[in-house]
Every structure is written in structure tokens, then in C-alpha cells.
């Protein structure tokens, strides 16, 4: 039987008691609070980049097209890994995914699937509703808020990388669109974990020894 001390390791430990209470209040209210509460203004002028930050004007290549463009992106790297004050023998690069306008995505689906008679408008509406409820496994829904002017989405399967020091401290503040709150960050990490680390993939991975 698992002990209470063991259980404690799996609960958020770095938060003040007020912040912890706030986090659990929001988790308790989920999914009826997927709105501006996922952001915080508290860290907006901080010079560090944080995991989950939205940043303007990141370089992006959409392979196999090799043209380089600029996109707003969401930082997927761990905060410690991209902290410039952490000196490393081999500095880690920053990974990020583009932030896509949900309204434009919806219109694009309507144009290519509803207008061509392939799908009903109801099926598209249902899909957009699923996105807003965070039901699509590899899409993170970002409601309009802070400096994010439109409801947006991030696809976890469309990741690029760049050197972590590409943005200096002033650029970080200038280009930051949002920073996630404790609740938003918990939700983000949960979905990121589900997307990248879920185990049930239905593949038998028998070791060499077993069949040699």
C-alpha cells in the first residue's frame, strides 16, 4: 500500500499555500474554467523564458517546404533547460510549436470540407467544440486573453527548435504574448505528457532475448 509520504511526492510542492489552494480550486472547477484563468500577468515583465510561454516572431520551417517564416510560438522546453543562467557544457536548444488562429482554422475546414460537400457544418462545429474543451489529444486550446488577441490552438506535432539564447532579455519581454498560470501550466503539462508519454500504444516490444 502506498504511504502518504509517497503520495505527497506526486502533488505540487513548490507552491505557497495560497497558490496551492488556488490551483486546486481551478482543477476542481475544470472544465468550466477554460478561459483567461489559464494565464497570469504576474510574470509578464520577467526576463526569463518559461515553459508554456507564448512568444512572437519565432523562426519556423514547415517541412517539406524549406522556406523560413516567422510565427507566434508556444515554448515546450522545460524552463530550467532554457534558462541562460544555467551554464551547461552542451546548451539545450529551445523547442516550440506554432500558435495557430482557431477562427482561421475553422474557416479553412469549412472551405475544404463543408463547401465541397464532404462534411456537414455540424461535424466541424463539433470538432471545434472538442478543441475548446481540450478533448483533442495533441491540440492545446488557448482562449483569447492577455495579449493573445484571438482564440488559438497549438499542435504538439508541429515542433521546431532554435538556440535558447536567440532571444535576449529585452526581446523576451517585448515578444512575450502570455505566460501560463499555475492552473494553465498544470493543464498544459498534463496534455503534453499524455501526448508524448502515454504508454498504451498496442505495440508488443518483446526484447531480443525472448525470441532468440
Amino acid at each position, binding site marked *: 500500500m502506498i504511504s*502518504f509520504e509517497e*503520495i*505527497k511526492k*506526486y*502533488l505540487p510542492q513548490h507552491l505557497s499555500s495560497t497558490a496551492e489552494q488556488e490551483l*486546486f480550486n481551478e*482543477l*476542481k472547477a*475544470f*472544465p468550466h474554467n477554460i478561459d483567461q484563468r489559464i494565464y497570469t500577468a504576474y510574470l509578464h515583465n520577467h526576463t526569463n523564458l518559461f515553459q508554456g510561454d507564448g512568444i512572437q516572431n519565432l523562426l519556423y520551417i*514547415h517541412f517539406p517546404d524549406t522556406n523560413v*517564416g516567422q*510565427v*507566434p510560438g508556444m515554448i515546450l522546453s522545460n524552463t530550467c533547460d532554457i534558462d541562460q543562467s544555467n551554464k551547461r557544457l552542451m546548451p539545450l536548444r529551445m523547442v516550440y510549436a*506554432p*500558435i*495557430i*488562429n482557431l477562427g*482561421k*482554422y475553422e474557416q*479553412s*475546414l469549412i472551405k*475544404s*470540407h463543408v463547401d465541397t460537400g*464532404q462534411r456537414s457544418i455540424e461535424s466541424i462545429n463539433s*470538432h471545434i467544440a*472538442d478543441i475548446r*474543451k*481540450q*478533448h*483533442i*489529444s*495533441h*491540440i492545446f486550446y488557448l482562449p483569447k486573453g492577455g495579449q493573445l488577441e484571438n482564440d488559438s490552438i497549438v*499542435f504538439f506535432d*508541429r515542433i521546431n527548435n532554435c538556440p535558447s539564447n536567440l532571444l535576449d532579455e529585452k526581446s523576451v519581454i517585448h515578444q512575450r504574448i502570455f505566460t501560463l498560470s499555475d492552473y494553465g501550466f498544470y493543464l498544459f503539462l*498534463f*496534455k503534453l505528457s*499524455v501526448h508524448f508519454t502515454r504508454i498504451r500504444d498496442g505495440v508488443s516490444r518483446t526484447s531480443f532475448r525472448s525470441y532468440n
Partner: protein
Amino acid sequence: MLLPQFRNLVGSAVTAGVLCYSYLGAPTTINLDTVNTNIQISAPKEIKYDYYQIINSDRAVMLEQIDIIHKFASSILDNIKDLDPEFSKTVDENFWDLI
């Protein structure tokens, strides 16, 4: 007048006094048909270290937090869906227009 000389009188008076309140300690008849056997009996609050105190307030909070996390995780995992490949293809074809 010495007390021992009147011990019978004193003894009778004390017994009479105690008997007046003896009903307080008498067993009560409980009708088992009306007893809810699912009620958990808690220890008096002044007893701090008996086995009823295994779940203290810190641990009760921890259990509630685990319950909240479990419900939060379930509400996502129970409804999780994959993206239709056709929708993904639309993103590929129109990527730069969607930014």
C-alpha cells in the same frame, strides 16, 4: 461527635445520594432495527493520539487533492480524441494562412 460513631448513618446518606443519580449509568435499551450500522463512530476530540487520528487534517487535505487531480485527469482522459487525418491535411495545405 466523631464520624466513625455514626458510620451507618453517614453510609446510608451517601448511598441514598448516589442512588438518586444512578439512572445516569443504567444501560439503555437500543432497538437494533432502527440502528444505522453504517455510521462511523468518531473518537472524542480531546483524545489526540488514538487510532482514530490516523487521518489527520493534513492527510485529509492530501486525500482531497488526490481526488481532485484524479477527477481532473479523468475528465480529460475519458473524453480524449484523435484528430481526423483529413483535418490535419487541411492544416498542412494552408499552414501559413492559419497563423
